[in-house]
């Protein structure tokens, strides 16, 4: 029996095949799935903000792209994944509202995606696929068995990357 592990906002967890791991309703947040294709050990993080170093109150590790991804790598390798084999898929970072003023906050989705890519590049983890930006919410389900990253959005057919 496989189970579904749920990851909340500002949260992360590991997942081993045949289980699957999901996070619901990603908006401007970014979901980062990591996987070791050999051991089929993976994990998923749901980050909210790009950079922990610009925020004074930054003790909540899974909240930020930089510290969240580092922690996810730590947890999947502790579970038995090989650090050098890790690959990533990412989704989210939408701009849910369009209004102009407070533009830095409005564009936080885009900044979350940039920060995620920067951190993964720094850790030399290749991004195999992404579904980011645009203006709609996404639910994601990751299967460490196959590496499929299934995406569900309102009014769209379910698809995978």
């Amino acid at each position: 029996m496989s189970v579904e592990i749920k990851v909340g906002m500002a949260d992360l967890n590991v997942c081993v095949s045949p289980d699957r791991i999901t996070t619901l309703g990603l908006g401007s947040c970014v979901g980062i799935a990591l996987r070791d294709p050999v051991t089929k050990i993976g994990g998923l993080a749901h980050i909210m903000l790009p950079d922990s170093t610009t925020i004074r109150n930054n003790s909540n590790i899974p909240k930020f792209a930089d510290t969240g991804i580092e922690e996810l790598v730590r947890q999947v390798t502790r579970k038995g994944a090989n650090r050098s084999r890790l690959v990533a898929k990412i989704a989210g970072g939408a701009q849910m509202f369009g209004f102009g003023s407070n533009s830095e906050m409005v564009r936080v989705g885009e900044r979350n995606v940039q920060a995620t890519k920067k951190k993964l590049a720094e850790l030399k983890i290749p991004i195999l696929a992404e579904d980011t930006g645009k203006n709609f919410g996404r639910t994601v389900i990751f299967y460490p068995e196959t590496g499929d990253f299934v995406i569900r959005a309102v009014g769209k057919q379910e698809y995978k990357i």
Partner: protein
Amino acid sequence: MGEINLDTMSNEYFDVLKELGNIGAGNATTALSQMIQCKIDMAVPQVQLLEFKELGAAMGGEEVVMAGIYLAIDGDIKGSIMFLLEKKAAKHLVAKLMGMESEQEDLSEMELSALKEVGNIITGAYLNSLSSITNLTIFPSVPDLTVDMAGAILSVPAIEFAALGDRMLMIQTQFFDEMVLDGYFILIPDLDSYGKMLAALGINM
């Protein structure tokens, strides 16, 4: 002026924010009732300080499709405000306002535009009461509307709260006419504005 931290906020501050929320939601209900010319009852609003991972459950699930109206606010109080309503309830309200029910499941352009107006009036009434209680100016921007999963819409105010702490203040208001309409207000003042609001009410920090 001391800094407000929602994670360690005392009961006194929380009670004040709660009361502001109650009054605002009451005014919003009156405005809504006048707009659709129909009596609307309101349950006592629930004011909650929630951790981010509890947000979805508090609204009946992250994937529930909702209409979210979002405005920036400027003036003495700066920040933003969001009003959320389940899509079903939104369609019901708009049908009342336009005097006709639409058959389609999706909201038409005209329904979306009417809904934006509903949101504008509701948030306007909320902000007006806040402004008159505190005697502080609040200038709302033009509203923006999106219909999507609750989690995705909530990510926007949640991210603004996330820059300050690990919890979010949410006011749930239940309206009733023939059906129960669950509405949610999320006021997101910046840190200075929290201080100004509380100081205006004579609360020292």
